[in-house]
C-alpha cells in the first residue's frame, strides 16, 4: 500500500519539482528563518502500521503570505499541521515555525502562533467566555491583566459577544467554529494556522471565515489555511501547496499554478491523420487523438493560423476550440479524482 503511495504520484512530483526549482533562490531552507514563517525539509510521518501519512514534505511558507494548503481528505494535511504544532513527532525530517525548530521549540514559539486544528474543541459545560479564559490562562506569555479586554475583543471580532455567556454545548456549529477562531486571536500572533476552518459551515459562514482570513492577512499576519476545496482558498491565497497521498505535489504562488494551466487546442475532424500532421508541422506538442477529436498544446501558436493551415491542407474541420483548464481541473489533476481510491 505504501509502495503504491510512494510510486504513484511520481509524475506529479516531477511537475512540482520544476516549480520548486524555480523558487529555490527565494525559499531555500538556508535563509528560512528570515524569510519563511514555516519551513520544513523532508518532513515525514510514518504511523505505527507502516503507513506513510506525510512523505518527505518540504514546505516553504513565506512570511506575510496567505498559504492555501490543499489536498483531499486523508492526504496528510492535518498530520503535517500536527507536526508543525508539536502535537505529533515527525518520524524523520525537520520543521521550523517562525524560525524555531519544532517540536523542540514548542513552548518558545507557539504563543506567537494561533491555531485551529481539526475542528473546534472546548468544554461543553463552560461558556464560550470561560473556555477562552481557560486557554488564555494556560498561556504563559498571556498577561492576566489584559485578559478581559483581549477576550472581549476576540469575541467581538468573530461576532460572538452576545453569546459569550452561553454554554458551549448550546452553540451552533458555526458559532463553535467562530469561537475557535477567536481563541486563535486571543493574543497578537505572527502566524495563524487554520485547519479546514470552513468545515461544516453554511455558505454564509464560509463567506464570513473568508472575510476574516482576508482581514487577518491584511494586518500582515501569515495565514496558513488548509482545505480540501480549492474554491475555498482560491480567493484569499497568495500561495498554495497541494498534497496528494502524503506528498507535496505542487508548491508555489497561486499565479504560478494558474500558468501551468497551459491552453490546448481541440480539433474535431474526420481526417485525424492529416490533422495531426498539420499540427505537428506547426510545432504543437503533445497531440492526443481520441476518436474524431485531437487535442494538442497550443503553445505560442495562433488559433486562426491553425484553422487556416488545416483548411489549406484539405482537412475537414468540424469544430475547433481553445481550452484552458480551470484551476479546479488542475487541482483535480494534481490530487486525483478523490474518494481516496488510491490508498
Amino acid at each position, binding site marked *: 500500500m505504501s509502495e503504491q503511495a510512494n510510486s504513484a504520484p511520481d509524475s506529479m512530483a516531477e511537475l512540482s519539482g520544476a516549480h520548486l526549482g524555480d523558487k529555490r533562490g527565494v525559499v531555500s531552507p538556508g535563509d528560512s528563518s528570515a524569510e519563511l514563517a514555516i519551513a520544513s525539509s523532508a518532513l515525514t510521518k510514518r504511523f505505527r502500521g507502516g503507513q506513510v501519512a506525510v512523505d518527505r514534505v518540504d514546505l516553504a511558507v513565506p512570511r*506575510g*503570505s*496567505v498559504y492555501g494548503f490543499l489536498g483531499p481528505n486523508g492526504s496528510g494535511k492535518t498530520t503535517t499541521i*500536527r507536526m508543525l*504544532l*508539536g*502535537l*505529533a*513527532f515527525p518520524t524523520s525530517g525537520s520543521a521550523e515555525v517562525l524560525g524555531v525548530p519544532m517540536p523542540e521549540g*514548542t*513552548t518558545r514559539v*507557539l*504563543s*506567537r*502562533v494561533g*491555531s485551529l*486544528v*481539526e*475542528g473546534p*474543541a*472546548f*468544554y*461543553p*459545560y*463552560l461558556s464560550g467566555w*470561560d473556555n477562552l*479564559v*481557560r*486557554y488564555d*490562562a*494556560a*498561556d*504563559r*506569555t*498571556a*498577561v*492576566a491583566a*489584559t485578559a478581559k*479586554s*483581549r477576550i472581549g*475583543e*476576540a469575541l467581538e*471580532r468573530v461576532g460572538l459577544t452576545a453569546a459569550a455567556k452561553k454554554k458551549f454545548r448550546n452553540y451552533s456549529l458555526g458559532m463553535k467554529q467562530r469561537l475557535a477562531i477567536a*481563541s486563535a*486571536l486571543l*493574543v*497578537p*500572533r*505572527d502566524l495563524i494556522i487554520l485547519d479546514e476552518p470552513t468545515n461544516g459551515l453554511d455558505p454564509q459562514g464560509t463567506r464570513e471565515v473568508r472575510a476574516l482570513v482576508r482581514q487577518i*492577512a*491584511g*494586518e*500582515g*499576519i501569515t495565514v496558513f489555511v488548509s482545505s480540501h476545496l480549492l474554491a475555498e482558498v482560491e480567493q484569499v491565497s*497568495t500561495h498554495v501547496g497541494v498534497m496528494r497521498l502524503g506528498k507535496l505535489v505542487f508548491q508555489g*504562488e*497561486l*499565479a504560478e499554478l494558474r500558468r501551468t494551466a497551459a491552453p490546448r487546442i481541440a480539433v474535431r475532424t474526420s481526417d485525424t491523420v492529416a490533422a495531426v500532421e498539420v499540427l505537428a508541422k506547426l510545432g504543437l506538442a503533445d497531440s492526443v487523438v481520441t476518436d474524431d477529436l485531437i487535442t494538442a498544446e497550443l503553445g505560442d501558436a495562433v488559433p486562426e493560423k491553425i484553422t487556416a493551415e488545416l483548411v489549406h491542407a484539405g482537412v475537414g474541420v468540424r469544430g475547433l476550440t481553445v481550452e484552458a483548464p480551470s484551476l479546479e481541473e488542475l487541482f483535480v489533476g494534481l490530487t486525483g479524482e478523490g474518494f481516496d481510491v488510491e490508498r
Partner: protein
Amino acid sequence: MSSVNEPSVSPGSAGVALADPPPTSQRGSGTGGASAAAVRADLRYFTNELRITFFRRRNQLLLLVAVLFPLLIGIGLKLSAPHGGGGGRGPGAGGAQYFSQLAGNGVFLTFVALSLLLILVLPVVVGVVAGDSIAGEAGYGTLRYLLAVPAGRTRLLAVKYATIVVWAVTATFIVSIVALVMGVALFGAGPVTLLSGTTVSLADGLVHVLWVTLYVCAAMAAFGAIALAISTFTEHSIGAIAASLIIVVASEVVENIPQFAPVNPYLPTNWWMSFDSLLRTPIDTTTLWHGLLSFAVYAALFLSIAWARFTSSDVTS
C-alpha cells in the same frame, strides 16, 4: 496579493497588534521580572484549573455523595449502638477495632468513616477526577488546543497533578470534618480513649484526627498519581477511571487471600488503613513510615510513567 504582503506593523515587534493596547511590550521583559511573571502565569493556570475542577457539577455531586456516607454511617451506628453502655460493638464484626469505641465518643466516627470510605468511596472521588484529567481533555479534543496554546506538556501534567492532590486533600478533609461534626452531634464529645487504652484530652484527640486525615490524604494523593498515569494512555476517561478503580479492588482482593501474604506490603492499598497506629500511644511510627514510603514510591513511579508517556506520545485526538 501585494497588499497582503505589506505588513502593517513595525518590524521587530513580537507580534502584530490585534488589540490596540500594549501587551507586546509586557511579554518577556527582563530576566528577573520574567521569572516572577512566569510564576504568576503558572499560578494563574493552576487557579483556573482548580476553579474548573471544583465548579464542575459532576465533581460537586461526587463530594456531596461522599459527604452522605459519614452521615449514614453515623445514623446507622447510633441506631445499632446499645443504650448507655460504653463497650457496644458496631455492626460488621470484621470492622476495625475502633467501632467499639464509638459509642463512648463521637470523635471516633471520623476514623470509622475514613476507614469505610477508603475501601471504595474516596478512591472513586479521587479516581474520577484523576482518571479524567488527561483522558477527558483528549476526549473533548481540548488537549490539542491546550498544547498548542502552548501550555507545555510537563507544565500541563504538573498542573493536573497539583489539582488532583488539592482535590484529594479537600475530599478527605470534607469527609473527616463532616464525620467529626456528625459524630459529636450524635455521640457527644469528651476525653478520647485511644485503642491502646490511654485516655487523652479532647484537644489531643483532635490532633490525632488531624494526623489520621493527613495520612489518608497522602494515600489518596499517591492513588491520584496512579490514576493520572493511566489517564495518559487513553482518550476515554471512563476507561481510565474504571481501570484505576479496578486496581484498587484487585489490590484489596489480593490482600485478603492469605496465600498472597508475601506480596502484601507492595500492594498499593496495603498501607491505606495503617493509620490506626496513630490511635495508640506511643504511636507506632515504623508502620506509618512504611506506609508513607509506599505512597511516595507509588507516586514517584506513576508520575514518572505519566511524564514519560505524556511528553513522548503524539496527540491524535
